[in-house]
């Protein structure tokens, strides 16, 4: 690849003084290994000079491999579609790394999570409980390899000081999204001055589970699909892509097309769902009803294509399990024709209703430079003038064979986010039609699937909510480390800016405007915070993701 070579040259030029080793791995990107002392400077150069977005960070307990704790900071250059990964290793006994959260604000959460789950201390910053519940015992880091998946420590009950000052709790259930989240809005009269997010109530330990002996490479796609109840298929595709990239498995063309078609069907139903919820939040229930009436046809179509309305379960490493025949192609075309005429009417209607337009315009503004700093993704980024879309920038599956527009708005308000999604629904329909026109023949499953150990792979998918990225280190029979980063994880920190100095009444819509998916963002053990009681996964305590278990 030309662009990759050029970027390798730039990176070598700028970082050769700091790096111990620079290598280009096709499955992941340019891996730059630095010593912890040089990490800050390297991150500064990659983030600001090379102008790469921060995508994800994977902390790994590599003590069984090379007796260190490793951290992989994944940056991405959208122009070339190549990742720059800064790799650094910390001491096995007292792992300490310098913080980069002041240079790369988007890395804030990742550092807290690495501290919580792996016990990697970050110098010169405040560390606190983030993912794990408050009564989790000190000094027990669940993602370390010496902690078994079956370990169930007894909780440590502590006293929590009462809240101070005027605060307004919103949650633990979102007024519209039925999901466990907890926002503390600090208010002055009717205006919001600050926001504190308290999440991870439904962290299910999925990453740890996939590393446990119960799982194999071919079982994880079904687990990955259950990360989210709305855009589950993107997670299973991202996982399979990361494994296939790492192990260089050739996936048949037809399977890639089928994956892309199903991904776009999923985008259709997800955006229609969101549009309905947004209408409902603004008190326009007629729009909500009609949006969901249209969505129902998409759900039936998804069932016809995959066998299930949700959690399609057709993905495996190496290909897909269900083929598309002529009967299904006719059904897709019929549904799309109907959908296009119905949705055109609805979109026209929704964007003309004064109570929606006037409430959405100018509220929840996320300026472009703040969006860039936080490396936000998906419709949130595109509504703030950042022209980024994984489907175009880091092509995967069959997206290299289709042409589509990436809608970008510069206003950065709630209305822009509505319009981005409305445009994307039309684009998704175009993409499906193009894919069906050029659907190649052949098998749908790779013949030989063998995954060697110790390889790194990155898989990314443009989910309805934004970029979903999985990083994997392969192990024997199952992933050694599997890092999931759902789009909402990147977008929630932006809420602080969107809600700042906004009227309280706009807060629910603004929170919903990033289309948050809390179950995606949360992934360890369920503990009842009040009683300290540990519970197994039960339906009422674990909504299927996006809180829409009830609705799907």
């Amino acid at each position, binding site marked *: 690849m030309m662009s990759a070579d050029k970027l390798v040259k730039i990176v070598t030029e700028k970082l050769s003084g700091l790096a111990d080793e620079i290598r280009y791995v096709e499955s992941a990107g340019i891996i730059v290994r630095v010593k912890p002392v040089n990490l800050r400077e390297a991150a500064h150069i990659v983030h600001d000079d090379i102008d790469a977005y921060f995508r994800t960070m994977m902390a790994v307990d590599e003590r069984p491999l090379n007796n260190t704790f490793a951290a992989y900071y994944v940056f991405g250059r959208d122009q070339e579609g190549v990742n720059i990964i800064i790799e650094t290793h910390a001491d096995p006994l007292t792992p300490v790394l310098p913080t980069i959260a002041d240079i790369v604000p988007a890395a804030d959460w990742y550092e807290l999570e690495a501290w919580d789950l792996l016990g990697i201390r970050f110098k010169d910053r405040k560390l606190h409980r983030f993912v794990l519940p408050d009564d989790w015992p000190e000094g027990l880091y669940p993602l370390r390899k010496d902690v078994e998946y079956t370990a169930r420590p007894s909780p440590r009950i502590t006293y929590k000081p009462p809240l101070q000052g005027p605060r307004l709790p919103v949650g633990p259930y979102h007024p519209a999204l039925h999901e466990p989240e907890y926002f503390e809005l600090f208010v002055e009269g009717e205006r919001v001055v600050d926001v504190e997010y308290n999440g991870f109530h439904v962290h299910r330990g999925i990453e740890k589970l996939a590393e446990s002996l119960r799982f194999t490479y071919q079982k994880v796609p079904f687990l990955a699909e*259950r990360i989210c109840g709305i855009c589950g298929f993107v997670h299973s595709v991202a996982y399979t892509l990361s494994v296939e990239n790492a192990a260089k498995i050739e996936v048949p063309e037809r399977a890639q097309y089928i994956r892309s078609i199903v991904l776009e069907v999923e985008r259709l139903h997800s955006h229609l769902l969101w549009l309905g919820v947004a209408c409902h939040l603004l008190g326009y229930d007629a729009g909500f009803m*009609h949006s969901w009436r249209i969505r129902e046809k998409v759900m039936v179509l998804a069932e016809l294509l995959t066998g299930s309305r949700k959690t399609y379960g057709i993905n495996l490493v190496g290909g897909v399990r269900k083929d598309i025949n002529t009967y299904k192609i006719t059904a897709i075309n019929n549904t799309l024709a109907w959908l296009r005429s119905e949705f055109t009417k609805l979109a*026209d209607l929704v964007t003309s209703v004064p109570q929606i337009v006037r409430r959405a315009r100018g509220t929840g503004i996320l300026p472009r430079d703040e969006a860039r700093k936080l490396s936000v993704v998906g419709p949130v980024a595109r509504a703030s003038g950042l022209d980024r879309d994984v489907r175009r920038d880091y092509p995967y599956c069959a997206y290299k064979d289709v042409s589509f527009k990436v809608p970008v708005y510069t206003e950065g308000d709630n209305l822009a986010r509505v319009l981005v999604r409305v445009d994307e629904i039309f684009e998704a329909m175009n993409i499906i039609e193009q894919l069906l026109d050029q659907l190649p023949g052949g098998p749908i499953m790779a013949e030989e699937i063998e995954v060697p150990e110790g390889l790194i792979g990155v898989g990314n998918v443009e989910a309805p909510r934004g970029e979903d990225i999985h990083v994997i280190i392969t192990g024997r029979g199952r992933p050694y480390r599997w890092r999931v980063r759902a789009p909402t994880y990147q977008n929630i920190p932006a809420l602080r800016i969107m809600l700042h100095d906004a009227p309280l009444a706009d807060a629910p819509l603004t929170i919903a405007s990033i289309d948050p998916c809390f179950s995606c963002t949360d992934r360890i053990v369920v503990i009842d915070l009040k009683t300290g009681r540990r519970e197994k996964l039960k339906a009422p305590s674990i909504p299927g993701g996006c809180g829409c278990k009830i609705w799907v």
Partner: protein
Amino acid sequence: MGLKKLFKPFKLISVARHSGVVTVLYPYQKPLITAEFRGKISIDASKCMGCGACANTCPPNALILSRRDNTIILNYFIGRCIFCGRCAEVCPVGAITVTHEFELASMSTRDLNESLVHQVEKCSGCGGGLGATRRMLQYVILHSPTAENYVHLCPNCRKKRFINALVMKMGARTENVES
């Protein structure tokens, strides 16, 4: 123009009239499922041979194969099932089929468990238990006919017979080997 824009929201009336009622009186009318729908699985007891291929691939461990004394038990717990149908794909004898059944709610977990008990074959040499059912042995013989000679023996007896045959070939007397 301004007036047209003002009255645009009222187009909803025509949309609503056009679409009519779309909901279904579900328990009384037929649910809207397509031919491709995956519901609970059904295991054909007359075909299953208890090999456990399904239990090995089952992602949520809804199918569990366990051995108790002289039986091999295949247990299917619907409560854990995610209706992916992987078991039906990997079953070597096609004993598992995916049905359209999905109304599975029950007051008792007993209704959600299905067990299939297989008798374990006895070793024709020493009479001890083999690790396989009769159908598994038949399956092996069907796919590699030469296996008929040793398939009914347990690993220990097989070892003995092999050493015997080897030593006999080399010309030694059997008594030495037996001791």
